[in-house]
């Protein structure tokens, strides 16, 4: 315990960098996912092809490869040297954004066709249809998967330590080098990652509940604990007993 208490401020600095990259990366991923996802629902074949190319390319390449490509390959052919933080946000945002785009596309397409037909019957413009009918319904469906993606991005952010960003993983590595307490130094970092993940889960669940309430669906009721991870392992749909 002393080990962790003494080094807590250093770990906290690392955790803040990890959180910062998570927030910025998620913001980039969200914007990309929305833009590309909506592009993928258009009837225009060029728009759809562009969306497919983006998703397949950035889903297909590992985030680590993207990261190294931006960090080490780009400076060799262009005069630009990107800051490691920026590279991290860019690589993670582009990668996770590609997964998000598929989620957005699927969620919009899953809104019942009658809803779209109604907007056409009411002579709504495309923008109006998206903004007031399709997106609010798709939104509630996207959120659970978005929650998982944010956690994925947070976990993947550990790779920025490989390009010398002082994130939580980097701090853990340095603590291990200076104290040779392997279990304590990495264990502390893992626990902090776990705590960050639980905080993100609670945040996303709150958003989900709000989205469902706004659509007039029964809100999942309950306390903070219920927000952590439903369905709990106790939910057995059918058992042999």
């Amino acid at each position, binding site marked *: 315990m002393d080990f962790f208490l003494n080094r807590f401020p250093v770990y906290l600095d690392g955790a803040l960098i990890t959180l910062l990259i998570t927030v910025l990366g998620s913001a980039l991923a969200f914007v990309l996912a929305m833009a590309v996802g909506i592009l993928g629902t258009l009837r225009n074949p060029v728009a759809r092809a562009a969306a497919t190319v983006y998703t*397949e*390319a950035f*889903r*297909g*390449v*590992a*985030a*680590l*490869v*993207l990261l*190294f*490509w931006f960090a*080490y*390959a780009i400076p*060799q*052919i262009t005069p630009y040297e990107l800051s490691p933080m920026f590279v991290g946000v860019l690589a993670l945002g582009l990668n996770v954004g590609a997964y998000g785009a598929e989620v957005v596309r699927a969620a919009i397409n899953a809104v019942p066709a009658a809803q779209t037909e109604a907007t056409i019957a009411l002579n709504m413009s495309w923008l109006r249809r998206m903004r007031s009918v399709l997106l609010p319904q798709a939104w509630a469906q996207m959120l659970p998967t978005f929650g998982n993606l944010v*956690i994925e991005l947070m*976990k*993947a*952010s*550990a*790779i920025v*330590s*490989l390009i010398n960003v002082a994130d*939580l*993983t980097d701090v*853990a*590595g340095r603590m*291990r080098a200076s104290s040779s307490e*392997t*279990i304590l130094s*990495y*264990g502390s*970092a*893992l626990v902090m*990652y*776990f705590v960050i*993940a*639980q905080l993100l*889960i609670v945040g996303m669940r709150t958003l989900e509940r709000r989205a469902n309430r706004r659509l007039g669906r029964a809100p999942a009721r309950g306390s903070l604990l219920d927000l952590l*991870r439903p*369905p709990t*392992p106790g*939910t*057995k*749909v*059918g*058992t*042999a007993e």
Partner: protein
Amino acid sequence: MNWDTEFAISIIPRLLEGLAVTVQATVIGYAVALVLGLVVAILRRMDYIGPVVFVVFEFIRTTPVLVQLLFVFALAPPAVTPLTIGITVLGVHYAAYTAEVYRSGIEGVAKGQWEACRALSLPPLRVWGAVVMPQAIRKVIPPLGNYLISMFKDTPYLFAITVGEMMFVAKAIGTEAFRSMEAYTLAGLFFLAVSVPSAVIIRRLERRYAAV
């Protein structure tokens, strides 16, 4: 500094060797994840053991696999090869995901099926082997396939524990020749060359099983 095609061609064989290690680690690690995930999914349904297994795997699932790799690598005795460590950690990490998939598949089996088993007083082994699992497995094939691809894309992390997979080779080439562009770009293209066709195959499987 520009793209050097001759150099790029000269490094292809080495990168392909790295790719072979990447694929090998993915395939063995995935086998571990498939088997262990099923065990975890079944253990989670038990009293007392269930909640403990749940918390342990929840922890594994929500913390970065890179840190887990570094952690185990630092603790493991020198006799264990880095590749073995990498495959084990990746397999256990992904078991946390596949367990969730199996769970949703098992819970998705209609309640009437369980009741019918009870009415026929089938022994538990037959309930699982002949009724529940055949129905559950079919539903979970597409999501399990997706995890195969994500696992493939997580194997570059093994480079951090000195496994000679593709990223490790690419980095080594970059350091030796002072040329990173070709190595990393080719590594990226090789990744696409494996993962895009796999995604297409899995999507086709998904369509086929969704129709059933």
